[in-house]
């Protein structure tokens, strides 16, 4: 009775701890895939949320085919009814004109500058403007600025900003001779919670399905970060539930088969629950926001934690002593230390996911270890290994003894396998961040299509940094001029188009004044019957941020404590040209999130390689300290062979390796060290053979299932561990010298 109370108190304590942490921390489960990524350049980190956060909240629809207009209107109405207002608003011409009027003469278009050459060119320009059937900017500004500098400036800016056509208040675009109606909607900030993203995504998809039924001739494409979030979250949740359930069923089957006892099942469950509660509590103390993929990877903790239970129960069931044998305690401690050290290296990972997995597993294993040592032992007298299992263990022992005789051949075969794999596909790393993406292909294609519809498929985002606002505007102007000199087809709209620098405005003002003195405006002034005047007021960023264009400008510029930055998109310019400009100017950056993140993954892959090397060295020292040098050499060689088999085979099966293969290798390394330690301490004892076989079988089942995942990252992880566990299961016994099983205990 006392042991039940102790066990329940232990479990309740952990559950209570978890409940307290959840109450205090109010953790949030995140499903934004990019939130997992390593942090990039500090300056970029500072500005990207400001510049691009709004894009994450945007959803876009393109509608084409018969009845496209009707479908557009119905969908638009549905979006408004469901609290998803259109994002696009056309600034009113009259308010725009009123805003810019006080600065007339200081803001000049290229067309106007060219017209200022002499009286003839200006008269031609002036007459042409007035002869047009209708020009809304001439009409709206001529009463404010008869020189038409304002009309020309606004015309040029609006032409540059105009991405789409407007047809009866509907946005349209022509792409490959087909007309598309476009809708942009803004979703709320909190739609990135998993439930909200899924609900929103589902309701939009249902509405689109209904429209597809009602208007079969119309095609609607949709894109937006929220759809990716929803798709990834659904997949992760599905896999987590499926893998978790199957793992649990498999483990229950194995335990019942080996022990034929419900007590064993209870003890194994207690260990796993302890690991989960303890791991989760510490994880939530450290991270208030946990990514859903962390939970997927964390399922693996079940596989490791239960090993402690297996070893403990099998040692107790031998009945040779009261409580655990000295060898078992030592082996468990060594196992905990090595596995924890391996996972602890993930704490320093720049990838949040890995750091979270590391914290969860280390804390979970510690709880599992404590549970095994303190609680499991109380049930020693009820733990008996089933007779058929003992027979199997005896047979396995004989097989392993024979296996030892073939050691050289096995090692040669392993080396042959590694060589053949390497010759077939040399090991290479692919750190493309898109490996993390489990979004459906259709969604990825929609995204690409919409980029092309927006004319951004060959565009590059660039960011200019400067010490202050005026320096930024000057730099932007210089860059635009230099780029268009080198690539005349270049298209870019920069902040300094809408807001020339103070120096530029003063130069314009002086120029207009000089031209007036030269009589360039004389003929035109006689038409208007009034002299042209030049403003002396300078347009500033603060003023522009109160203009009708403020929503656009706010998103385009950021003023920090130490710098000012502005982003812009450049199209129709070869990447090499932009790279030249960026490398020549430290204030200019090409912003490519995918490349930045992939670069981050590359750095991390290298550090994982180093971690693997360190883990190997650490294990070698441990082996050398605890066992003999010769034995340590053999154990280290087996570890190297195992890792080499993993990397070469995965390389053949996947085409290239990813960071997740390295991560999996680290886990295999931790498990391998466990097996090697247990073999060395407990030799080929029946209990040890059963424990290691059970551990390997359960781990293969749990981790191997991850290889069924659709998410490339999880697939790679699972495949790596599956191959690694098979390899170490085969190779680990070969480190034994002689089949001694009891002397060392």
């Amino acid at each position, binding site marked *: 009775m006392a042991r039940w109370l102790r066990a329940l108190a232990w479990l309740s304590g952990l559950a209570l701890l978890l409940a307290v942490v959840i109450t205090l921390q109010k953790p949030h489960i995140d499903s934004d895939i990019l939130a997992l990524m390593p942090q990039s350049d500090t300056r970029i980190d500072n500005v990207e949320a400001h510049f691009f956060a709004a894009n994450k909240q945007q959803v876009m629809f393109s509608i084409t085919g018969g009845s496209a207009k009707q479908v557009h209107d119905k969908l638009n109405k549905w979006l408004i009814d469901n609290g998803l207002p259109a994002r696009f608003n*056309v600034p009113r011409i*009259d308010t725009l004109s009123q805003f810019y009027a006080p600065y007339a003469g200081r803001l000049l278009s290229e067309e106007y500058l060219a017209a200022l050459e002499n009286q003839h060119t200006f008269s031609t320009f002036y007459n042409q403007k007035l*002869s047009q*059937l209708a020009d809304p900017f001439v*009409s709206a500004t001529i009463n404010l600025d008869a020189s038409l500098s304002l009309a020309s400036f606004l015309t040029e800016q609006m032409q540059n900003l105009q991405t789409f056509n407007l047809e009866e*208040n509907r946005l349209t675009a*022509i792409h490959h001779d087909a007309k598309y109606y476009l809708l942009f909607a803004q979703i709320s900030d909190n739609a990135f919670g998993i439930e909200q993203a899924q609900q929103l995504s589902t309701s939009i998809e249902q509405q689109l399905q209904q429209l597809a039924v009602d208007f079969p001739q119309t095609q609607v494409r949709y894109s937006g970060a929220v759809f990716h979030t929803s798709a990834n979250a659904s997949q992760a949740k599905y896999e987590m539930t499926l893998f978790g359930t199957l793992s649990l069923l498999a483990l229950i089957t194995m335990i019942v088969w080996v022990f034929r006892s419900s007590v064993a099942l209870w003890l194994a469950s207690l260990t796993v629950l302890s690991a989960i509660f303890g791991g989760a509590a510490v994880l939530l103390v450290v991270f208030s926001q946990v990514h859903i993929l962390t939970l997927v990877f964390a399922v693996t903790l079940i596989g490791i934690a239960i090993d402690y239970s297996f070893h403990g129960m099998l040692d107790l069931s031998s009945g040779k002593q009261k409580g655990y044998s000295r060898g078992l305690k030592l082996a468990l401690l060594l196992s905990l230390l090595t596995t924890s050290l391996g996972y602890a290296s993930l704490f320093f990972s720049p990838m949040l996911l890995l750091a979270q997995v590391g914290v969860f597993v280390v804390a979970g294993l510690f709880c599992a270890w404590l549970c095994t040592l303190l609680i499991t032992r109380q049930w020693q007298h009820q733990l008996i290994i089933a007779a058929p299992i003992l027979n199997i263990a005896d047979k396995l022992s004989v097989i392993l003894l024979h296996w030892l005789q073939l050691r050289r051949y096995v090692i040669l075969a392993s080396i042959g396998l590694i060589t053949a794999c390497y010759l077939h596909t040399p090991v290479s790393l692919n750190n493309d961040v898109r490996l993390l993406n489990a979004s459906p292909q259709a969604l990825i294609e929609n995204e690409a299509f919409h980029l092309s519809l927006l004319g951004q498929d060959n565009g590059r985002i660039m960011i200019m940094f400067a010490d202050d606002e005026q320096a930024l505007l000057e730099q932007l102007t210089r860059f635009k001029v230099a780029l268009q000199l080198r690539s005349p087809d270049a298209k870019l709209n920069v902040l300094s188009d809408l807001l020339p620098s103070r120096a530029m405005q003063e130069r314009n003002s002086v120029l207009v004044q000089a031209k007036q003195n030269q009589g360039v405006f004389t003929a035109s002034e006689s038409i208007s019957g009034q002299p042209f005047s030049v403003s002396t007021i300078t347009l500033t960023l603060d003023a522009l941020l109160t203009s009708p264009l403020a929503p656009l400008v706010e998103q385009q510029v950021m003023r920090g404590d130490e710098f000012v930055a502005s982003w812009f998109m450049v199209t129709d310019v070869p990447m090499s040209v932009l790279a030249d400009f960026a490398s020549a100017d430290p204030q200019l950056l090409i912003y490519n999130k995918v490349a930045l993140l992939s670069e981050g993954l590359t750095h991390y892959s290298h550090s994982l390689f180093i971690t693997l090397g360190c883990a190997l060295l650490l294990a070698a020292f441990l082996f050398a300290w605890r066992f003999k040098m010769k034995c340590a050499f053999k154990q280290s060689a087996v570890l190297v062979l195992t890792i080499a088999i993993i990397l070469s085979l995965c390389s053949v099966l996947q085409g290239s390796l990813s960071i997740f293969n390295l991560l999996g290798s680290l886990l295999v390394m931790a498990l391998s060290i466990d097996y090697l330690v247990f073999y060395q301490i407990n030799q080929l004892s029946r209990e040890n053979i059963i424990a290691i076989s059970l551990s390997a079988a359960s781990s293969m089942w749990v981790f191997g299932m991850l290889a069924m995942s659709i998410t490339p990252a999880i697939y790679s992880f699972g495949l790596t561990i599956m191959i690694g566990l098979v390899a170490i299961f085969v190779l680990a016994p070969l480190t034994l010298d002689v089949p001694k099983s009891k002397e060392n205990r």
Partner: protein
Amino acid sequence: MIRLFIFSVACLLTTLVYASEPSLHKAGEFRQEKYFAGFAKPFISSGVFVLEPKQLKWQVTKPINNTLLIKNGQVYVDDSQGDAVLQPGAAPFVNLLQAIITHDLGALEQQFTVSDDTPADCSLLQPKDQLLSQLFVSFQLCAVDGNVQQVRLNEHNANYTIIHFKYAAPVNYSTTDATEIN
């Protein structure tokens, strides 16, 4: 911007065809008077136009030469070298233009509220569209015997434009003939 400009052309074409006979071939001269508040006198320009089922040529000849061509659903404007340059963004008005050319009153009434005006033979068109109503308060069309004689475009800020039309004989002109009318 270009869209708005094209819209103006389309509106003018509306006036041309709205009151016209089914024949889609029209040509003639126009005189445009622009009255700007604050200007001592109106700005006057003139030129010729040729309207065919699939294209319109609108050519200002005084005080400067300037041509606008709407053809195959696209809009071309002469640049400083005199080359016709395609104006992107005009496609939205192609439907409207087609409605105008084919005298599709149903389509026109989707964008304008049409009512009778004084003097007789004149109609008042008020844009329903939010963007169009930013540009114009209304149009006044005056037609005699199916031919539009005068259009008045009323803007918000007391500016207005009056266009007078003078038609040539209803023959099948080719576009290239347009310049010869003058």
